[in-house]
């Protein structure tokens, strides 16, 4: 049956791009976006970089232009949080009430993990949303003597880089032997480590956080590490990953397992799709059930899920599988790091252009005879050309031999 109306829960990147895709596909019925933040959709990547650095005002990160919004004719319900859904009766419950919905697109994203017991300590931050970055920036503007960043993943690394750019002393704490080693492998992780060290970061690896010491005003004073060391800090930023926002769907009748479980077309149940950080689906291209937390995936999957919702199976229409090559970038210091594909630390690794010494290179990841990924440091052109090869199913050997 053709869709009459669509509710999108989550008014950030995936939700907004989905809404736009619905209109592009000539869906003329009502579209409602429900978002728990009070803000209109904004772009998150600049938060840890330009906004935190103080280079950009927050109005520069708006994802919607007022004139464009009029054309789209979307109903935004902001500052309203979804609290439940019942698949059988199709009842959506929010902090503002309950209603029966027709098409539902779940794009509630993820939230930051926190260090147990640290939530109420002054000066301890996570970075996910606009309010987070404004609070962190206010603390940085006060001129801390040292910032400790816990977790050298992409957010932690970018925050460390931005804080160095602002002139703060930074200690970066990572539980694993190298930053990003779990994703990129230790050889590439060491390149990331070197970049931090060259830029004056006090990098501590293979070490965890035992506790945060507070002063008599309830603010953090120091971070105690598992190797017994103590690092004085008036600001702590915790970047230890995210968890998908699925609690509101626990008793919905949908399958929840580290995300909203979908089929390979992004369908979670009849008339229910999911997209972005919250969605978990089997990506046939990599023979892997995945949940992808990247900016680009929020767009691509938002668009795909929106189109999926409009597929009218009663009319014999067939839905496409969602088979992207995941891709992301991270800007740290003067390096643009990009990764395309789906890599594991034990994949084979070959540098195909540039060198580790100059920290400007492209490296290919292979598994058996398959090309599964490409990592670039300041090599955007190469990353995109190899990404296309991954998409085209080019073998590892062919990719290594290719002259590009």
């Amino acid at each position, binding site marked *: 049956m053709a869709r009459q109306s669509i509710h999108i829960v989550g008014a950030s990147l995936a939700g907004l*791009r989905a809404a*736009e895709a619905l209109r*592009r596909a000539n869906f003329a019925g009502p579209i409602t976006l429900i978002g728990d933040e009070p803000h209109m959709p904004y*772009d998150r990547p600049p938060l840890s970089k330009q906004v935190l650095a103080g280079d950009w005002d927050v109005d520069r990160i708006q994802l919607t232009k007022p004139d464009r919004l009029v054309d789209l004719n979307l109903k935004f319900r902001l500052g309203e949080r979804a609290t439940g859904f019942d698949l059988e009766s199709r009842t959506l419950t929010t902090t503002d009430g309950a209603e029966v919905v027709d098409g539902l697109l779940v794009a509630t994203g993820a939230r930051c993990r926190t260090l147990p017991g640290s939530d109420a300590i002054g000066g301890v931050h996570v970075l996910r949303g606009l309010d987070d970055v404004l609070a962190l920036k206010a603390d940085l503007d006060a001129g801390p003597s040292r910032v400790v960043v816990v977790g050298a993943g992409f957010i932690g690394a970018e925050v460390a880089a931005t804080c160095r750019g602002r002139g703060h002393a930074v200690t970066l704490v990572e539980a694993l032997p190298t930053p990003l080693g779990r994703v990129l492998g230790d050889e590439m992780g060491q390149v990331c480590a070197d970049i931090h060290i060259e830029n004056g970061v006090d990098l501590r690896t293979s070490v965890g956080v035992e506790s945060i010491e507070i002063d008599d005003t309830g603010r953090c004073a120091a971070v105690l590490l598992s190797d017994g060391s103590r690092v004085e800090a008036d600001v702590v930023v915790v970047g230890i990953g995210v968890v998908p926002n699925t609690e509101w769907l626990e008793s919905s009748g949908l399958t929840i397992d580290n995300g909203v479980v979908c089929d390979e077309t992004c369908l979670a149940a009849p008339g229910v799709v999911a997209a972005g950080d919250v969605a978990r689906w089997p990506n046939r291209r990599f023979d892997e059930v995945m949940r992808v937390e990247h900016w*680009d995936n929020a767009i691509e999957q938002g668009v795909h899920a929106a189109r999926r919702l409009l597929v009218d199976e009663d009319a014999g229409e067939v839905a496409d599988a969602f088979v992207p090559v995941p891709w992301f*970038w991270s800007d740290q210091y003067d390096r643009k790091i990009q990764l395309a594909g789906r890599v594991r630390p034990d994949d084979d690794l070959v540098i195909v252009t540039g060198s580790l010494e100059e920290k400007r290179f492209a490296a290919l990841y292979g598994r058996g005879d398959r090309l599964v990924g490409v990592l670039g440091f300041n090599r955007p*052109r190469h*990353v*995109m050309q190899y990404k296309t090869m991954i998409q085209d199913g080019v073998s590892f050997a062919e990719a290594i031999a290719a002259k590009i």
Partner: protein
Amino acid sequence: MKIVVDFDLCESNAICMQIAPDVFEVRDDDFLYILNESPAEDDRGRMEEAVQRCPKQAISIED
């Protein structure tokens, strides 16, 4: 349809090049070059995708 790139914003992420290599090219100097400033009207879907997926929101379409 005219493709406009704000080169102050562009950081050569090259995602546009993957979507439309006949229109956008990032060269070895890491700069983006526009190969075709006026793609045909029936190419609008692909151009809109390039606009949306530019991480720096540096691409726009002037009608």
